[in-house]
Structure formats: structure tokens, C-alpha cells
């Protein structure tokens, strides 16, 4: 199944949320495209994600979380480079942290239906993936959750 969820056409979120989304995405892009070796880059990214989790302690309302993820995707339309699931989900997690809120960053894979597909997404603790297509059992297995 395909869907066009990876792109958001509608501007969403309040002004502070949109600012946080832009900053979060920018930060995520810098982290994920740092000009250092791949394993180092990933180590820095993980460290940043853990920091973000510590910074954002307050829970996030599911509708606000959805708006925030959409806002990050909407901001990504200005970026001509790669801004796939990895970039936007990390962006959303960092954006939430900037607002003092908490989103988990998840990395995983989907085995069914084949072929195997790797994916990254943002998750709201207790509620599940945010801004992801989950209807009809469209789910990924989590390998790492921060």
C-alpha cells in the first residue's frame, strides 16, 4: 500500500510550534548529515535524542503531537535535500523537546507485507506512533526506541 502521508500540504500548529518544528528539523538535518564518519554521526545523533528526552519531560497531547509532526513535514518542503522518515521524525522529537514536551524516537523495520522496509517514526508514550499510517495493521517492529 502507498500513501502520501510523507508530505503535508496544510500548514498546521501554532506559531511557537511551527518555530520549534523548523528549529527541530534544522537540527535533525545537521545531525544526520554531519561531515563525519557514519558511525560517529549516528552516535552524536543518539546522544542528541537522549538529551532531548531529558529536556522534554512534560507529556504531549495526541492532537498537539500530530500537529507538531505535520508542522515538521510541512517545513520540510523547503528543504531540497533528503528529508525522509529519519529526518522528519527526529525533527519532530527535537521540536517537542524545544517545547519542553516528550516524544519518543523509534527506529525499526517492517517485514509484512514484503519487501523488508526500514523506517523511523515518532511515538507518543502510551499512545503509539504519531502521524503514521497505522490503520489495517500497517505496523513496523521497533528495534530501538529512545
Amino acid at each position: 500500500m502507498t500513501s502520501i502521508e510523507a508530505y503535508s500540504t496544510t500548514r498546521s500548529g501554532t506559531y511557537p510550534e511551527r518555530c520549534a518544528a523548523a528549529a527541530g528539523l534544522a537540527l535533525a538535518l545537521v545531525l544526520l548529515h554531519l561531515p563525519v564518519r557514519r558511525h560517529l554521526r549516528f552516535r552524536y545523533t543518539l546522544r542528541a535524542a537522549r538529551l532531548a528526552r531529558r529536556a522534554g519531560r512534560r507529556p504531549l497531547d495526541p492532537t498537539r503531537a500530530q500537529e507538531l509532526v505535520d508542522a515538521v513535514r510541512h517545513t520540510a518542503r523547503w528543504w531540497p535535500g533528503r528529508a525522509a522518515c529519519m529526518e522528519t521524525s527526529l525533527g519532530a522529537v527535537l521540536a517537542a523537546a524545544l517545547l519542553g514536551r516528550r516524544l519518543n524516537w523509534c527506529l525499526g523495520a517492517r517485514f509484512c507485507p514484503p519487501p523488508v522496509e526500514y523506517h523511523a517514526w515518532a511515538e507518543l508514550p502510551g499512545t503509539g506512533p504519531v502521524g503514521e499510517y497505522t490503520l489495517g495493521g500497517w505496523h513496523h517492529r521497533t528495534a530501538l526506541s529512545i
Partner: protein
Amino acid sequence: MRWSAGWYGGTRHDRQPAGGRAVPGLENTWTVGWPTARVRSAGEGPVVLTTVGECGASDRQLREALPAVRARGWPALTGWPGSYLVVARSGETLAVVGDLAGQHPVYYREDAAGTWWSTTASALAALDGAPVDVTVLAAHLAFSQPDALAERSLFRSVRRVPGGHLLLLGPDGAAVERYEPVTYPSVALREAAPTVRAALTEAVATRIDDRPVSADLAGLDSTTLACLAAQHAPVTAVTYADERLRDDDLAYARRTAAAVPSLTHHAVPGAADAVYYAGLNDLTELPATDAPNPYVVTASIKRAVLGTVVEKMPGPGVHFTGAAGDAVLSAPSSYLADLLRERQHRRALSHAVIHARLRHTSAFTVLARVKDAARTGLAGSWLRTAAELRRPARDWIPQAQRPISWTPLLASADWMAPDVRRRLAAALDQAAEELTDAPVRLADWSDRQDLARLGTNTAGWRALALAEHGIELAAPYLDNEVIRACLAVPADRRGEPAQYKPLLDAAFTGTGVLPPFVLARTTKGGFNALAYAGLRDHARVLKELLGPSSRLAALGLVTEYPITSALERAAAGQPTAQGTLHLVVAAEVWLRQLAFAPKQWWEEVTPRVALA
């Protein structure tokens, strides 16, 4: 099998189609298997007009078209709703006009005494046992663009009338003439929307008489047709819902059926063995088709759907399918090449960013893929493809990562023996040299080729539905008028990446035909899971089918190693050349059917019958 044929020539012919019925008013023209109601004629002396198939013209309209026939204004005969073949005679000239999507293709062969024409190439080949043209079959496997080797058919010595052309037979012999413009004048999406709505509404209405009506209810395209049909008659709607698909088609279908009163909905549960490639060990179970038919691979799924339809309906009827909806209502990202060629750089970049988001890549990667296609024309592109074929075979990478081209090579091109690749290259070089009226826009070319391919494929599905279930398959998106209405909108507007099927949305929003949530849908189901399951479950049969004993291998069209490695990748759940395997298997089945079950196409005409 349903087909039509005719003879035009000085001397008397010595045979006629087996079981053929003469078309009233036209001598030496026959239809086979068509119900009488689907063969309609009007005539006045030497001016005769016949339509074969689903034609929406009333008897009066047919009579009113006779002056156009007399004046030889053939294009005027192609604008009625439905999908049909036109045979028209004006004095000494006979015109045979197929449809735009090749659902009623036209083939012919000339000899000293006259010309045979038919809608079936195999029948013309059977006249003297003409063999399969290996180069054309190679082209079919390598790029599946029917018009690339324009007038060559899958059989040697049988000529094909390319899409948008008609066959003119006269005392001086046969001629092929274009009746459809290469490019339509472009129409804005908003202006085209009412035309699209009208064309689709008429296309559906034309097929509804007192037969029971059924429809697929899955994606946006089939749902639209089901809802249009529901305005005229009660509709039995079916959704194929295998748990392994993990899509939301069923959820949407249920919601739609609840919102539209005359839709009765039935889910078709999947079965463990209803996967792709099931049932290929007994090829006699499959209906024979004129061209390789990809539905042989998915026959078990289609049978489950049509079986349910038959079960739930009072009798055999007409079944609507959304086939080809994607081809006319949206566009592949290759139109970016046209935007670059036309120097619409800003638009190209903004679209490329969205395509990049959808494909998890960067806009620069997307633009780099189309860069070359933007700089070359069709002929130039063929020369390049030919050069590529002369180089050694490539390793497999997903088609979506290869550069976009006017005529992109599929993985199957790399599975062929070097000698076949060289022959195909030579044929392409020649085609490039002989090319006349090439389209300027890549989208215009590839849209037509997609439609022609889908038309042939749907014809195969239609044969399956009719032979096994007595069901008439209707694919309105392949109708002339629907194609004209949709393709008049430039590809970059139809394929607007930030919006899902904007043309359908503009055509039906606020008309009350479709529930609003259907038009707002942004997801689309797919059969990937069943394709992979089939590749895994039937790997042994496939290996044998395409192994050293295969007919394709004997012709040098496949070699063993790539097949094995593609199947291994599928078994491991890795991406693989799935679509290409599908194409190759269909071709192999077709070749075997040709050899093992020769059909009796013709019968001798005794002099007494000929005189009568």
C-alpha cells in the same frame, strides 16, 4: 474468444473464421463470439457503418454518421462512449478503426490477391503458420512499449496498426493513417473536470442495460465507477480483502457501501493458496489470449473475485473495473523531464521536492534521474537505448533508481542472450530512423504506451472473465472519450504530487456521486504481499517454467541465473524485479499455450457456400 476479421481483395477467399457470423451489409466481414446486439450496422447503398463491441451510439446516431462515412471523415466515428471497433465502407474504400487503448486492436496481412484484417494477430498468423517474431517479443519483454516497433506484431508477416491509427483498404492495397493527434491541445484542470465527469458518467451509463451490474470496490478509481453505476441500477460491489494485504481498501469499501444505498457490498476473503503464480502447473486451465496476458499470474485472485460476483448475482452481467484509472487520472514522475525541457525550472524544483519526500530521497536525486531524458527526444532516446543494449547486461537495481528515459529498459533486457540484445538494438536503431511525428513531450509518449499496454492486459482479463464466468468486463477508463478528456490535462497538472488524483477530485467534488471521504482519501492498496507470497510459494514451478526447458530460454529471451537470483531475493523478503518476473512468466505461458493448444481459427469455404 471474441474477434472480428475481414477480407478485402479481388479474388475470392477460400476460408472464413470458424464459427464466424457475417456482418450484415458488409461482404467478407465476420465476427466470432460477439452477441448479435453488440454488432450494429447502418447503411445506404455503398455506404455502410458497423460497430462491434460496447458502442454508446443510438441507431439514429449511427444513421446520422453515414454522411461522415461517405465523406471519409473517419475520426468522427470514434467519439461515441464505450469501447468498440468500427468497420466502415465508403464506395471502394473500407476503413477499420480500432480504439485508442488497443482493446480492439487491428492487424492485417497483405498478399497478391488481397488483404486479410483481424482484431487478433494469432488468427492471421494461423493462416499460414507464421512464427513468433522474436525481436518483437524481446521488445515486449525489454520495454513493453507497443508502438516502439510500430507496425510489427508479435508474429512475423502480420502487420499491426499502431495506436491512434486506422487501416484503410482500397483497390490500391492497404494503408495506415493517423486519426488521433500526437498531442492534445492542453486544457486546464478546472476546465477539463466537467468533461471528465461527463465522459465517465456516459461511459458507465452506456454499459448498463437490463443485465445485473457488479463492480470492484477498492481504490479511488473503482469506487468512482461503482458509485456512478449505482446511480442507474443496484450494484453488487466486491472487495478482495486478504489479511496479508494490510491495506485500508476494505475499511473504505464498507464505509462507501454504507453511504451509497444501491451498493451491496461483499468482501472476498483471501485464501492461503490464492497468491500470484498459483495454478501455473496446468496451463490448459487458462484461456488462450492473443497476446501475453499478465492476468494468468493473478488468475487465482481474479477467479475468487469473479466467483463471488457470480454467486451473489442473479445471472451473468457486466462487471466494472477501475483498470487504467491510474494511467489517465495521474501521471508518473517522468513528466519532470518535460518541465526541465520547457525550462520551467521553478515548477520542476518544487515538484521534485515533493516527489523526493514521497520517495525518501532528495530533490537533486529526483532531478538527476530525469536530466538525460530532458535533453533527448524520442529518436535520440532509442539510439541511446540501442547503445545500452549493445553493452553487457547490468546488475539489478530497482527501476525507481534508474534514470528515467523515453523507453526505459526493464530488468528483463538484462536477462536476454547477447545475440537477442543485439537484434533488439538493431530494431531500435531502425525504428529511430523511420520515426515520424514523434511527440515533443515525454509524458505524451509514455501515457499512450501505458494505455496501450493496459488495454492489451485488460483484454486478457476480459477473456478470462468471459470464458470462465460469463461476465462482461467493463473498463471505462480505457474508453476513447475518457482518455481524450483526461489526457488533455497536461501530465504535470494531473500528476500534481501534493494531491492525490486532483482531476477526479475536481470532477466529482460536490456532485453527490461519491461520498466526500472517498475523494479525501490519500492511500492506495496494493497486492505486493500476495506477489511476494506467490514468488516464495511457487518458486519451484517458476524456476522450471523459466528454466533451461522454457520456450523463452530456447529463443534466448531469458537465461537461468538472473531468474534464480531474483527468486532468491523474493524468498528472503528483499526487493526484487517483481514486475519483470510477472511479465516474463506471462510471456512464457503464452508461448506454451500457442504451441500446445493450437486453436482452430479458420474453416474452409466450399464453393457452394461462397456463392450463397
